[in-house]
């Protein structure tokens, strides 16, 4: 965002706003720049403005305010067919009246490419997605996963430098989706193309991207690499949206040297790292990942604060145990523990003590 230099950026959104009806802004003040070769995911719930951003980049929507730059040139006044951007659509948008090979040849034909060159490129693109045998088929004769591959090959066959993907894996089953996630990222990285990927699936965003932009309410809430997004969410929306997350409401009691103590609903104190709280007395929402909660004090600082908790439910999930606790008046507090030989299996009704390292609990906006 602010720290990004816009000099070597390949795609830039500069204070972009979009309104469909002239009143409500679907996209509010979007600033984003991505360097060549980056795989950026726009992640957010439906209606957060992510798809609108993609459509503005593709040229199917026009920005109400602000400028979009591609390779340093403003593209607001360039029609979609002159932008040279590849795109994979949510429903693949393969032409049903053409064979797979004709679909792939289409972008090359409109570029007036010679027949032999065209055939060579189509073949190479089909081989790239391991669909070399299927050139003569029609899209309807292919499975969902195969159609997906063809759509990908068609978006890449004319060698665009920028490829947009609009929830391309949404219609596939889980196993195929995971496989395609891997395939798409490796192809994108091998070809060195810049990719803007839109999804509402956070797993997809975390596993595929170099950076993720979390959208909500027409704004980017946080733009960061996946690990930073998961481990250091900057506000409570991001913390809730990415991964599983426990929250505790409270009021900041003391704050010093990058640590703070927060008094939670039942009156007990707990340690946290202040993220967007600045002074005692402020209301805050503490966010803590289920796998970062410690049971007992053995691995914590000697004078760390702990909370009393009552076990409500113990769920055996194979590799991990998932335990639901009542903590500070909330009964949706979840902890995850690894299924290790020495790991205790808790029983409902047991009273335990939980705590955490101050830097794992983030005191966010309430």
């Amino acid at each position: 965002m602010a720290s990004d230099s816009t000099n070597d950026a390949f795609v830039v959104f500069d204070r972009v706003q979009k309104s469909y009806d002239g009143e409500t802004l679907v996209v509010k003040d979007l600033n984003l720049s991505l360097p060549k070769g980056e795989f950026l995911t726009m992640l957010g719930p439906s209606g957060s403005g992510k798809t609108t951003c993609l459509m503005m980049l593709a040229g199917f929507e026009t920005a109400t305010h602000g400028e979009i730059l591609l390779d340093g040139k403003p593209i607001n006044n360039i029609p979609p067919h002159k932008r040279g951007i590849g795109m994979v659509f949510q429903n693949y948008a393969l032409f049903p009246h053409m064979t797979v090979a004709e679909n792939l040849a289409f972008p090359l034909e409109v570029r007036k490419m010679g027949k032999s060159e065209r055939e060579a490129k189509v073949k190479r693109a089909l081989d790239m997605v391991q669909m070399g045998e299927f050139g003569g088929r029609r899209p309807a004769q292919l499975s969902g996963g195969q159609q997906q591959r063809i759509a990908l090959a068609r978006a890449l066959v004319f060698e665009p430098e920028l490829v947009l993907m609009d929830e391309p894996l949404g219609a596939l089953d889980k196993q195929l989706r995971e496989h395609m996630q891997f395939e798409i990222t490796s192809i994108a990285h091998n070809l060195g193309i810049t990719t803007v990927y839109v999804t509402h699936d956070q797993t997809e965003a975390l596993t595929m991207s170099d950076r993720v932009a979390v959208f909500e309410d027409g704004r980017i809430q946080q733009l960061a690499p996946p690990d930073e997004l998961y481990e250091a969410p900057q506000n409570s929306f991001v913390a809730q949206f990415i991964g599983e997350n426990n929250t505790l409401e409270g009021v900041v009691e003391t704050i010093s040297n990058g640590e703070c103590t927060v008094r939670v609903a039942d009156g007990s104190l707990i340690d946290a790292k202040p993220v967007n709280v600045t002074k005692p007395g402020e209301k805050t929402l503490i966010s803590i990942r289920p796998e970062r909660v410690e049971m007992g004090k053995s691995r914590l600082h000697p004078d760390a604060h702990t909370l009393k908790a009552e076990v409500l439910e113990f769920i055996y999930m194979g590799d991990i145990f998932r335990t639901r606790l009542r903590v500070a008046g909330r009964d949706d507090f979840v902890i995850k523990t690894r299924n290790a030989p020495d790991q205790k299996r808790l029983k409902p009704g047991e009273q335990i003590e939980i705590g955490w390292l101050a830097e794992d609990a983030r005191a966010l906006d309430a």
Partner: protein
Amino acid sequence: MSQLPPYATVGQRAWYYGFRVICAFIFFFLIAPILVIIPLSFNAENFFTYTPGMLRLDPEAYSLKHYRDFLTNPEWTSAVWNSVRIAPMATLLSVSLGTLAAVGLSQSHVPGRRAIMAILISPMIVPLIISATGMYFFYSKINIVGTYWGVVLAHTVLGIPFVIITVTATLVGFDKSLTRAAANMGADPVTTFFRVQMPLILPGVISGGLFAFITSFDEVVVVLFIGSAELQTLPWQMFTGLREQISPTILAAATILVAISIGLLTTVEILRRRSERLRGMSPG
């Protein structure tokens, strides 16, 4: 045909058979008037009735003389020639303009598209005699009454609503992301229309064209106003023939028209199914 379920009540059983009887009557009333003229057109006499010889199936009572008259009498041949000159041109214009209108009106951002649609379809709703009178006064002001292009233009106006309706219906199922995909791959709007959109809405365009053709080929009211002695179309000739001479040649003409209509409908239906099959293959 569906079977009666074993639990059907008496009322349901009665309706089950009653419904079939009603359907049979409807078909009878639709088809009988057409079927009855076909044997009459082979009448050896110059009458509009079945002669006793015909009823006895006497070969002497049948002849092809009315067909001969139809194919050799200059009144009829020029009428056929006029219809053949006018109908395809009117169809071509209706299909081009109607398809463009339907594509345009299917864009959600067009202001007042419902009103425009209503105006374009109005020739179908307004009584023909009123349209014809209006056209006569308007066309005579711009001096195209009695000309070839005057009749073509009038028939185009009558044909456009059919094309708009059928093409609009096909466009409802058209996936907009296909045109976006084409644009994205570098195709300009015109290329996109002819390479992507047109092949997929072709069934609607063909049916619309068929209706427009039949409208022009069958139309008698407007042509009576706009046409001229040199521009008598086949329906006009049949109409005046009925009024003035009552020759069974009309029946021969009608039989030939029925045969052409059946042939045309069958061809178009086969074409339509073929492209429907391609279209039905679209994913999602």
